[in-house]
């Protein structure tokens, strides 16, 4: 399981200004903290970066590379910025991301090919977000076909089926898991990733880790290759490293529809079971889901 640290992000209240002001210190400190927390990649998210994006991406890549040789995931929708980052990346980069929107596809694929980079294939189509698992399959097949056609090998593609917030639409939460169970069949050899924290977007901040961890277990069951995560959630890291087989088993039992008696469980086990129940759609989500 590859973990990609999400913290270096233009949306961050502290790092956003540091990125805009080209202040290296907070960014380097965050990079080192994420490395210490045990991730395998660092995501560098500069957003759409419409103005001087190329200069910003080059700067942040070099700034981070000055303190660590951790592989980088370059996260922007601006292809010029992406290329500027790829040019200075010392290790094999991950392009985050290429989608099926025509302009992003046309701009992204040549970059993956020319720089021999891995690429995240975001399942966002010309018509927006896929509505269910089948549409995700269609988009995945199409994306792999287009990439292969350009000469990009399947194993360089990390499909991102899009995790969407549980507080918005449970069917999308379920479809993403269902799709993961189909991916190996529809696109053999493909890798996968997911922006995990999005599952808990809009939920109370102190409760977000419960949803992130349990959803990771559910996706890992179907072979999730990597995830973009909160590097500082130690329990999430332990799950990803296979150190919590007991709760994993418990979550799988909920996924299989087993009725588990909450009273027989420890507090932590009960929290995983309750969270799995809302993520499978067995129970409707509410902010108090752990209390009832």
């Amino acid at each position, binding site marked *: 399981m590859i973990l990609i640290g999400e913290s270096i992000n233009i949306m961050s209240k502290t790092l956003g200004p540091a990125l805009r002001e080209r202040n290296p210190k907070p960014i380097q400190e965050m990079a080192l903290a994420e490395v210490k927390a045990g991730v395998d990649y660092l995501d560098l998210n500069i957003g759409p970066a419409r103005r001087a994006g190329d200069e910003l991406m080059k700067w942040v890549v070099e700034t981070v590379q000055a303190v660590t040789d951790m592989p980088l995931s370059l996260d922007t929708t601006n292809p010029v910025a992406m290329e500027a980052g790829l040019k200075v990346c010392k290790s094999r980069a991950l392009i985050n991301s290429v989608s099926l929107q025509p302009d992003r596809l046309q701009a992204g694929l040549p970059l993956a090919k020319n720089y021999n980079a891995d690429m995240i294939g975001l399942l966002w189509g010309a018509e927006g977000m896929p509505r269910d698992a089948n549409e995700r399959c269609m988009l995945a097949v199409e994306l792999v076909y287009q990439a292969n056609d350009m000469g990009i090998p399947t194993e360089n593609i990390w499909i991102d089926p899009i995790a969407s917030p549980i507080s918005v639409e449970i069917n999308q939460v379920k479809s993403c898991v269902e799709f993961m169970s189909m991916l190996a069949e529809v696109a053999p050899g493909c890798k996968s990733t997911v922006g995990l924290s999005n599952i808990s977007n809009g939920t109370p901040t102190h409760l977000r880790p419960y949803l992130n961890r349990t959803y990771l277990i559910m996706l890992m069951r179907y072979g999730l290759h990597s995830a973009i995560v909160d590097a500082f959630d130690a329990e999430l890291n332990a799950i990803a490293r296979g150190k919590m087989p007991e709760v994993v088993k418990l979550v799988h039992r909920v996924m299989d529809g087993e009725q588990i008696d909450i009273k027989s469980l420890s507090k932590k086990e009960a929290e995983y079971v309750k969270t799995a129940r809302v993520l499978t759609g067995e129970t*409707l989500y*509410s902010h108090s889901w752990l209390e*009832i």
Partner: protein
Amino acid sequence: MPVEIPKIAYSGKVKEVTLGKGGKTVTVGGETSYPFYLFEGAMTNKPKIAMEVWDCPPEDWAAAALEPFAGVTGDPVAWAKKCINDYGAEMIALELISTDPNGLNRPAAEAAAVVKKVSDAIDVPLIVWGTANHEKDTEVLRLVAELCQDKRLILGPVEEGDHKRIGAASLAYHHTVIASTPIDINLAKQLNILLGNLGVPDDLLVMDPTVSGIGYGIEYCYSVMERMRMAGLTQQDEKLQFPIICNISKETWKTKEAKSPTGEVPELGEARKRGILLEAMSSVALLMAGADVLIMRHPEAIKLVREMIADLTAS
């Protein structure tokens, strides 16, 4: 080969809530199947209609909506009585329009006194509806709760932002609470949990999913209500097994499609018929989605909806 008709397996039931007090109470809820699926379960109590009364004379109502209440719109007591005596209202919904801080901003004490007068003058259940301004509603509804204690009013909208203080007053003075959320099933469940935590018993709670009329996003309301019923009836979600109240009259009658006079938009047809049909058809759509109580305005729209309810529940 015989055809097997698919049947839904219900595992839950909508809670029964009795509104009002004394002789003319109204009991709603109790469904054991989807709305009007009488071939699969029971609708112990038919959906009920409350007639809307304003606490100040309406200034921008369509002529068609004003006409049935000519002469009484300046007096909420007379208006409520007309609804009951002339139009057979089973419940009254008193809209505290005058308390709106962005409008007349009538003081809480005055507004509460009007509520008291209306509640003393009628014997059917009385719904009291604020302006959804948390501060003002807290002030007004708390006072109403106290002044009309033990009258078992139905107070709303109670939202997450004011649920503690209005909820506590309702609890202290024995009223029913309308839990109101902005067209979101997860938030609806959450508010019901919070009100439960506060101590509001299940039989004093109804929920308002926030609705709009035809042409203004009713599909979205429909879908949220439908999912509430699915969760409550087939997923044993106890926190969504409450009767649903829909305040639809204002939403349909405030639209330009309902208000514009015939002469201004002849292509839309006769204004009177248009307004009535918009209200009636929006109401019927909400019944199909699971409404237990409708707040309605026009007597003819109400008549149409009553007929529809009678037809759909005829054995």
